[in-house]
């Protein structure tokens, strides 16, 4: 009798307790997400808690870093039919397409188009492009959207406002034209400062800036025509692109040792106020904050070298998640990713991790520097969305050629001729 009374009180108290909580009890369902983003782990776990409280569905974020090991695990898991409900594919679009063709990735187009394409329209269109396969794509993948961008990234120029002021320039007006950029270079020697730092030792960053200027000088169509082999690299416009690097070197704008510089060194130099400019990605906001929280800097598009075409920068989806098409929880996984990419969750992720949100409505809730990186998405492009890709030996010769120009070993004309020779060799092989 006494126990019965005690039990009744306990049951009533529990009912009150649960009624008082707005969260739903654990439904027994769970979703597993494999990711590689060490710095986003605490934020993901916090969002998982919020999602469980809202829906009763438990989300397990499982971290496998570094990214190389993560990729190996995903590949092995695909072979062993052990892929989780949600995962990411790191690498080229070719790898992505092979996973789709093997039936491992769910086509998200129907979900994206629901409610007048509400989900699709919430993203920066260029962020979605990386996960999209269009009609007649060269990978022979059925057209559709196969991934959800979690964040975006853009690569542009940053400048140190204090040093810029020290050199006698307006700290709120970064260079707008290539001539203005070179003018800063001419003042650097007297001030004993380094100019532009970047990870040009990891040559893809040279390729990135060179492509930006190629788009600006000759336009996208001509760049694509060159990749297709219809325009030679010896064309006057390409020589103009290569000559820009010679001009930058001659003006004193480039930091000493830039051709062998790794990006980590470049980031240290810029964060420690030893360099005025850096060419870096939006991830650098997080890096600079860690190295020097007091650093005053701004982001801007690489200054135009021509008025003929708009400037382009590399950008797009930073990290994306895919859904396992064979998962029994795929519907729940879709709902979770849809929730994760809604404005409040995206704003929280951006604030907690300093990564740019993929949801375009979230950018008014982020810092000025981050917002200027995000706004540059309008100018973003990426080789993955061009539909054609250049031969690797050609890219290597082009980038190494620029390094030779910077160290004064070769002229732009010589490099252009050498690159064209390799291009013709590769085209002949393909035929």
């Amino acid at each position, binding site marked *: 009798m006494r126990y019965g009374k005690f039990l009744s009180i306990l049951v009533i108290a529990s009912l009150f307790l649960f009624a008082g909580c707005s969260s739903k009890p654990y439904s027994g369902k769970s979703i597993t997400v494999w990711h*590689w*983003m*060490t*710095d986003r*782990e605490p934020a993901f776990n916090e969002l998982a808690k919020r999602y469980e409280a809202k829906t009763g569905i438990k989300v397990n974020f*499982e*971290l*496998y*870093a*570094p*990214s190389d*090991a*993560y990729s*190996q*695990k995903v*590949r*092995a*898991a695909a*072979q*062993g039919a*052990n892929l989780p409900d949600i995962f990411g594919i790191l690498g080229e679009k070719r790898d992505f397409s092979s996973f789709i063709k093997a039936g491992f990735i769910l086509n998200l187009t129907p979900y994206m188009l629901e409610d007048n394409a509400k989900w699709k329209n919430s993203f920066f269109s260029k962020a979605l492009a990386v996960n999209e396969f269009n009609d007649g794509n060269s990978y022979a993948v059925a057209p559709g959207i196969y991934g959800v961008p979690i964040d975006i990234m853009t690569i542009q120029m940053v400048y140190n406002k204090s040093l810029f002021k020290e050199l006698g320039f307006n700290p709120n007006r970064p260079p707008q034209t290539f001539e203005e950029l070179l003018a800063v270079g001419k003042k650097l020697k007297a001030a004993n400062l380094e100019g532009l730092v970047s990870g040009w030792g990891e040559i893809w960053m040279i390729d990135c800036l060179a492509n930006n200027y190629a788009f600006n000088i000759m336009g996208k169509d001509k760049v694509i025509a060159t990749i297709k082999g219809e325009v030679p690299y010896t064309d006057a416009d390409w020589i103009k692109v290569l000559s820009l690097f010679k001009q930058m070197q001659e003006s004193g704008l480039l930091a000493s040792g830039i051709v062998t510089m790794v990006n980590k060194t470049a980031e*240290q130099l810029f*964060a*420690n106020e030893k360099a005025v400019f850096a060419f870096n*990605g939006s*991830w*650098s906001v*997080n*890096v600079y904050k*860690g*190295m*020097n*929280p007091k650093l005053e800097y701004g982001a801007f598009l690489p200054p135009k070298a021509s008025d003929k075409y708009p400037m382009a920068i590399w950008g797009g989806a930073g990290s994306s998640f895919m859904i396992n098409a064979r998962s029994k929880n795929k519907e729940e996984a879709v709902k979770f990713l849809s929730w994760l990419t809604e404005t409040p969750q995206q704003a929280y992720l951006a604030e907690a991790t300093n990564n740019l949100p993929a949801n375009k409505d979230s950018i008014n809730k982020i810092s000025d520097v981050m917002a200027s990186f995000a706004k540059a998405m309008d100018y973003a492009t990426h080789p993955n969305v061009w539909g054609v890709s250049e031969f690797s030996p050609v890219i290597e010769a082009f980038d190494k050629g620029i390094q030779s120009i910077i160290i004064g070993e070769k002229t732009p004309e010589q490099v252009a001729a050498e690159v064209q020779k390799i291009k013709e060799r590769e085209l002949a092989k393909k035929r």
Partner: protein
Amino acid sequence: MRSTIYYKAKKTSENIIIHLFMLTVAVTCIFPLLWMVSSSLKTQETIFKDMSIIPKALHFENYYQAWIQGGFGRYFLNSLIYTVAVVIGIIIISSLAAYAFSRLKFPGKNIIFFIFIAAMMIPIQGSFVALYVLLNKLHLRNTPVGYILCMINVGLSTSIFLLKTFFDKMPKELEDAARIDGCSKFGIWWNVALPLAKPVLAVVVVFNALNVWNEFILALLIFDSRPLMPLQVALITFQGEFVTRYPLLMAGLTISIIPILLLYVLMQKYIVKGVTQGAVVG
């Protein structure tokens, strides 16, 4: 005739040059360790500004934070269990196999031995997918047993090679004497071969312990459950895609090298013997 002073001066100058050279080598070896300890006591901001070995402000709390944030307690225990289990497994299997390759006669002995040696040349990354699928079929994926078996397999070929080289040089008379005393083949291996092979076993222990202690890629592949991961995985927590928390990483690294450093110190005598006795021939 040259005076004693001349020879003394010559010897002293030779000694100075040799010692200077050795000192340079020693400093080169020790400096990364010093830098690691020094960085573990700095902040994320000062690590890129304060280049001194002894930082102006010592942040010992980095060690506490690394231990807590990295969840070192559990991972440390996991690594310890994996290392001990793998090293014991390797010692037993490789010493038996090496003794058999060295002393017993059986068909295909040389071919099997060369297959083992060839396995040394294959990097483990090359067999990741095959290993994953195999463990999956055996229901050993995401289990400590699966990981331990894989790691034993990784260390076997080199260990067999080292021990066989030693057993080949061991005088046969010792075994004959043991046989006269009534020892079986297994008894000879246990009572004669193994005790004599102590220096080589020390090399095998240190070599494999280091290998298992520092391994994490195979662990990431095999384990899905984080609580089963080894210590090195905890260190990755401090390395972001773009941002690395250096002070915590360095504090974590300092903690993680302590057991291996102790093992080296404890087995130093045997390792030197092992090396000088030709344990690492070839």
